[in-house]
């Protein structure tokens, strides 16, 4: 297992446009999540809300390595993946408002974003519930000879679920084109990883199934992109499933009602010093790939997109109760 | 048949049609339809009974005129060929 954690101090070989694209995508997620928290406290967003603040580099870095034809399976913390994959911010906000203009027509809410056109096969609220689905999507591709990747995001909590074991074994056995992306943010809700995993090295686990794996600093968007690209290209070449463990951290509580007592303030503050966005801005400025004016303009475009998204969600309409029972079943083709 | 025999026959036919009637209470000079619950079916059955027992046919047109037992007895008495010959035959 090679450790490819590119330290944040190495000189940066990055084109200016791509750098700005990565930064803008991370800012889009950060501001979107901040606004979601505000709207939740105002009662506009209800139910559960799991914020991606602190993990932006993972979704943004990984998504650069996937084509529109690849498939995505995510978890209930799916706002970052959905935005980075290109789902319209307005449709995501509307979905959290429960409006029919939402990406799942208001039926799923924050934990269940779906978009068939972007092959975004959803957020899953059952820990590791999405892994077998990803296995099936890849099985179909391999049986029909299609050279594409199914990227499956999951957290450190899923690693000890039975479905992780069953799916990795089946994928390795049948050489299924699945890219397993483990967002290891060190906590499964309130249980720290070392209190749940007998061996906390996720990458090592994958090796035991014959699935090549790599761990990478999930706070370094460039390192994430490089590591995920290596794995994605191998999968696309038909070398079977690969796993990347992205070591990251969430700056907010598990969800809005979580008093976050299971970790210390110091630990959180310490991790905040490695905020993936601030780190990246610093590196771009030292490499003169970004100046304050450009950053200001990026923030304004992100803010404008966000205001539009909220207005779109506010303007959306509720699904009529008469439609309650539609789409429980699909009608057979005439 | 004497007038009394005709009267007795008429009352007997009436009782067949209206079993709840008490012959002793029946007034012969007052319309029997006012005294008994006799509808058009009962009246027809009564006329048929008299046809079968007294061999006299009362035309429908005469119904209104023959409302009491007395009137009926007079009517039948006139029609029967000879009141007594019947008794002898």
């Amino acid at each position: 297992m090679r450790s490819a954690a590119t330290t944040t101090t190495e000189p940066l070989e990055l084109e200016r446009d791509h750098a700005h694209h990565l930064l803008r995508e991370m800012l889009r997620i950060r501001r979107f999540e901040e606004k979601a928290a505000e709207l939740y406290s105002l009662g506009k967003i209800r139910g559960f809300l799991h914020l991606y603040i602190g993990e932006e580099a993972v979704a943004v870095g990984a998504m650069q390595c996937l084509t529109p034809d690849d498939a995505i399976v995510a978890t209930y913390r799916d706002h970052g993946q959905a935005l980075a994959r290109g789902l319209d911010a307005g449709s995501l906000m509307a979905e959290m408002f429960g409006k029919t203009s939402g990406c799942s027509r208001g039926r799923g809410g924050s934990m269940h974003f779906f978009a068939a056109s972007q092959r975004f096969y959803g957020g899953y609220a059952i820990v590791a519930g999405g892994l077998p689905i990803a296995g099936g999507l890849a099985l179909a591709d391999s049986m029909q000879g299609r050279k594409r990747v199914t990227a499956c995001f999951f957290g450190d909590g899923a690693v000890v679920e039975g479905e992780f074991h069953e799916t990795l074994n089946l994928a390795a056995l049948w050489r299924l084109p699945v890219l397993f992306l483990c967002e290891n943010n060190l906590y499964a809700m309130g249980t720290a990883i070392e209190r749940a995993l007998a061996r906390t090295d996720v990458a090592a686990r994958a090796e035991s199934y014959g699935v090549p794996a790599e761990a990478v600093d999930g706070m370094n968007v460039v390192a994430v992109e490089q590591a995920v690209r290596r794995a994605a290209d191998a999968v696309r070449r038909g070398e079977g499933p690969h796993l990347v463990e992205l070591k990251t951290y969430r700056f907010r509580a598990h969800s809005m009602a979580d008093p976050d007592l299971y970790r210390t303030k110091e630990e959180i503050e310490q991790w905040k010093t490695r905020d993936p966005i601030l780190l990246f801005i610093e590196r771009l400025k030292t490499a003169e790939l970004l100046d304050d004016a450009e950053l200001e303009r990026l923030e304004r475009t992100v803010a404008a997109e966000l205001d539009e998204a909220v207005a779109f969600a506010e303007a959306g309409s509720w699904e009529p109760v008469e439609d309650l029972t539609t789409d429980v079943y699909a009608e057979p083709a005439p | 048949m004497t007038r009394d025999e005709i009267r007795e026959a008429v009352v007997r036919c009436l009782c067949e049609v209206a079993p709840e009637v008490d012959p002793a209470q029946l007034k012969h000079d007052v319309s029997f339809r006012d005294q008994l619950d006799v509808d058009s079916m009962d009246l027809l059955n009564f006329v048929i009974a008299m046809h079968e027992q007294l061999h006299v046919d009362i035309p429908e047109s005469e119904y209104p005129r023959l409302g009491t037992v007395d009137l009926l007895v007079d009517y039948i008495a006139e029609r029967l060929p000879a009141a007594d010959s019947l008794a002898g035959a």
Partner: protein
Amino acid sequence: MAEFVMPALGADMSAGTLLAWRKEPGDTVARGDIIAEVHTDKADIEVEVFSSGVIEKLLVEPGTLVPTGTPLALIREDGAAAEAVPAAAPAAPPPAAPAAPPPPPHLLISPSAKQLATELGVDPATITGSGPGGRIQRKDVEAAAARAAPPTPAAPPAPAAAEDAQAAMRRAIAAAMSRSKREIPHVYLSTTIDLTQATRWLADENAARAVPDRLLQGVLLIKAVALALREFPDLNARWQGEQAVAGERINVGVAISLRGGGLVAPAIHDTDTLTLDELMHRFRDLVMRARAFSLRSAEMSDPTITVTSIGERGVEAIYPIIVPPQVAIVGFGRIVERPWIHEGQLLACPVVTATVSIDHRVADGHRGSAFLVAIDQRLQEPEEL
């Protein structure tokens, strides 16, 4: 001026207690700063502020429980206008439900048996059930219906039994009639029918017949109704569940008054196919057996329509109640002599007032009126009856 409101923290939180303020009026705050600590059912949570500016005024004292969305503090924002927080309209109290009518005394009877009892006009209260715990079953109702017309030939029932049967019948009629009035939206129509043709034809016919073969006027009326009904299958029907089911045959129920009160309306089967002579014979037989309490169960439950007549000693018109589950009933008043314009000439003619009551769930007044007109036309050609 921006409001800092009690935030909704978690799916099932509707209110929270302000534990402590972390800022004082006059402090400047930036978006994301911790402004207060709030107690929820699950835990105490530090709460961030979403607007930046200077705290103007604290509206709520620590230790007070307030619903989510309640303004807790006012913040003079640097520049941006505060977002209006929509106040949730209090839900109107539900209207008080009308007091339910007291439940009828509980009679142990199976639903199917109750249904049959209504159809046969048998009062369940008069029946003792053979089922467990005395529950009344279909076979008990069928037996009772047959009993209501005991099979003893001709011999009138003993007075006590008659009394009993009389009371049972009265109750059965009461139940059927009140149910009819309750459930069936009646529409009533009437017309005066000129019986000159019919009366003249009948007088000539009877004059030519032997006394025992004489026909009654009622027979002509029944046959006219039966023939007219052929063009009105929707009125020749039985109401079952939520809709009328057309009868395959035309069975006219003929209302027969019984000695000492009470009424039954047994059916003459296939009335429209009978000749006048056959109809007269069936009619006389029915009257005799009804008055001798020896009707058959099928005759009781098969009529698809009922005809009732006041007879020649009653009033001029009757507006009858439909016999459930039928959907129509025809009534004839007394035949009377009336001034009548006949081709411009004023004549004295025998006329009768004919009425029909229609179940408005099945057909409307126009239909009923057309039906009466059809009966009138039939009676103008007595020789065709």
